[in-house]
């Protein structure tokens, strides 16, 4: 029943509620799709038995009238989330066959609401990357191809497996995480919707840490409403994460389709960067016109420190990463490579366990935090971070949300940028500002480029105002009427 994988999450939940099919049937269809798509390398671990078991349990709950918000919906889980009894590796060799004895709070929330787990999704190692090429399991292949071509393209990163699986209909939705753009850039590259909520909306407990002041979980889905349904379940205060915000989670889906008339949308002029493809510029203008037609007031705003966001990020994130990743010492879990003494054992373990990009970031982080350099780099970056957050505060005195492109290009070929770290980092030029300021950001598929590849537009909101993003996001979605899907070649 392949048509079951073509449903949106919303339609699938409606179909389950109406008894048109069971979760077992729905799950089986997705398991088959997942198993037939191994060429994409989206899943690093398939858990079909567990999925069918969860589906049967869901059908039982539904029969008893106890169905939850996501009951019976098969989802994919990024391998950064710890799942009890199911191998969780962050796609790093250093975690080996690490099998958590606990469940992350976000995934626990999904299971509480009845969702079904299909498996664990590929990603850049420790979420460090923009192309999925740093994964210890090899890169994910984007289900999209250039029209008439067969070159393998990146699905983006770090949540490349999540985005590819959603785009290729290998799950109804997926969890993802975003430290500098890792939800939104892959969503843009695969024609899917992704939202990074306000820092603190989703608990970080049980998510493998990369840069703790920037990491935030969120969903990738095929529609704005599906993303809203998923985020409503994923979010919520968690006493186990001291940065989790003690606020109520609204029903985000209730904001979808609401009128956006009279809302003020800012266009930050600094996001018009040199060398941006004309098609992206044109799509951005198209987005402005759509929102004008929907009754929004368009206001030009200035975020003067935008160009400093990426360099500030490449101090803050590696500094936090070097500290967070100090825990991988080969003593309590994961890989251990013995040396002649304790220090050598540490050094050998970490040399063999970490990939090149992770090592690069740990070295940068260690350097900028080392004696004599702390003020020049780390403290300076924290001050620039404040400047960037202040820019947003000032803009949001005048507007309700901001509209920008999500990424400076469409999906590029695997291998195209892997030799130049800075060129790779520039992928996050439009997304990283939001992480530094702790704000919510959403990518919505808005059109195709001349090669037939999807492009995304980004909406940025005030802290804790995801609701407005869902309203404007559904207005963009409606106007764009983005129906294109990748042609199945796998």
């Amino acid at each position, binding site marked *: 029943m392949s048509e079951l994988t073509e449903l949106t999450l919303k339609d699938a939940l409606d179909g389950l509620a109406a008894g048109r099919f069971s979760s077992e049937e729905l799950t089986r269809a997705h398991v088959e799709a997942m198993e037939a798509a191994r060429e994409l390398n989206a899943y690093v671990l398939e858990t079909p038995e567990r999925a069918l078991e969860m589906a049967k349990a869901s059908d039982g709950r539904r029969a008893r009238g106890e169905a939850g918000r996501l009951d019976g919906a098969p989802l994919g889980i990024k391998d950064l989330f710890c799942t009890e009894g199911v191998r969780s590796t962050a796609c790093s060799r250093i975690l080996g066959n*690490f099998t958590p*004895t606990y469940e992350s709070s976000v995934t626990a929330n999904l299971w509480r609401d009845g969702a079904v787990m299909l498996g664990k999704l590929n990603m850049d190692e420790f979420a460090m990357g923009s192309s999925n090429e740093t994964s210890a399991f090899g890169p994910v292949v984007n289900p999209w191809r250039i029209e008439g071509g067969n070159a393998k393209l990146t699905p983006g990163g770090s949540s490349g497996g999540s985005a590819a699986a959603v785009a290729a209909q290998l799950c109804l939705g997926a969890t993802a995480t975003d430290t500098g753009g890792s939800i939104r850039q892959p969503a843009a590259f695969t024609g899917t919707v992704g939202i990074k909520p306000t820092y*603190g909306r989703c608990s970080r407990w049980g998510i493998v840490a990369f840069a703790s*002041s*920037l990491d935030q979980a969120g969903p990738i889905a095929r529609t704005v409403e599906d993303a809203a349904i998923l985020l409503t379940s994923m979010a919520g205060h968690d*006493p186990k994460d*001291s*940065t989790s*915000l*003690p606020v109520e989670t609204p029903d985000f889906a209730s904001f979808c389709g609401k009128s956006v008339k009279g809302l003020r949308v800012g266009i930050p002029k600094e996001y018009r960067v040199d060398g941006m493809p004309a098609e992206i510029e044109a799509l951005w203008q198209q987005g402005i016109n759509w929102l004008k037609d929907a009754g929004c007031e368009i206001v030009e705003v200035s975020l003067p*420190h935008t*160009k*400093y966001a990426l*360099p500030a990020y*490449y*101090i803050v994130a590696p500094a936090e990463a*070097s500290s967070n990743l100090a825990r991988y010492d*080969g*003593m*309590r*879990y*994961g*890989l*251990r490579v*013995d*040396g002649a*003494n*304790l220090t*050598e*054992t*540490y*050094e*050998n373990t*970490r*040399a063999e366990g*970490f990939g090149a990009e992770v090592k*690069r970031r*740990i*070295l*940068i982080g*260690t*350097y900028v935090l*080392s004696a004599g350099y702390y003020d020049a*780099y780390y*403290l*300076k*970056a*924290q*001050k*620039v*971070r*404040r*400047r960037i*957050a202040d820019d947003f505060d000032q803009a949001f005195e005048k507007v309700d949300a901001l509209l920008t492109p999500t990424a400076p290009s469409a999906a590029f070929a695997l291998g195209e940028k892997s030799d130049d*770290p*800075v060129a790779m980092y520039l992928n996050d030029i439009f997304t990283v500002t939001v*992480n*530094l*300021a*702790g704000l919510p950001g959403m990518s919505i598929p808005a059109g195709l480029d001349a090669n037939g590849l999807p492009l995304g537009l980004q909406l940025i909101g005030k802290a804790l105002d995801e609701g407005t993003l869902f309203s404007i996001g559904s207005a963009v979605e409606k106007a764009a009427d983005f129906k294109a899907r990748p042609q199945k070649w796998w």
Partner: protein
Amino acid sequence: MAIDAATVKKVARLARIAEPDDKLEPLARELSGILDWIEQLNEVDTDGVAPMTSAVAASLPMRDDVVTDGGDPAKVLANAPKTERGFFVVPKVVE
């Protein structure tokens, strides 16, 4: 060039990552490239700006100082590379 091979060697030691000698020079070039690009932060006037240390304005919550978890050594040790009689086994630390 912001950092040389000797600095990379020192930083790699601090980070407890074994880097073979023939990798130090290429790494120094790579890291210098990144650090040179980061140098543009010096263009930003940050006099009198308070460093931003957290993405949320909320102050850290306090909880009662009581035991909330624990008592499950099997779970704690479940993923250990080497264990013995309920303990982690690690290389000798004291001579």
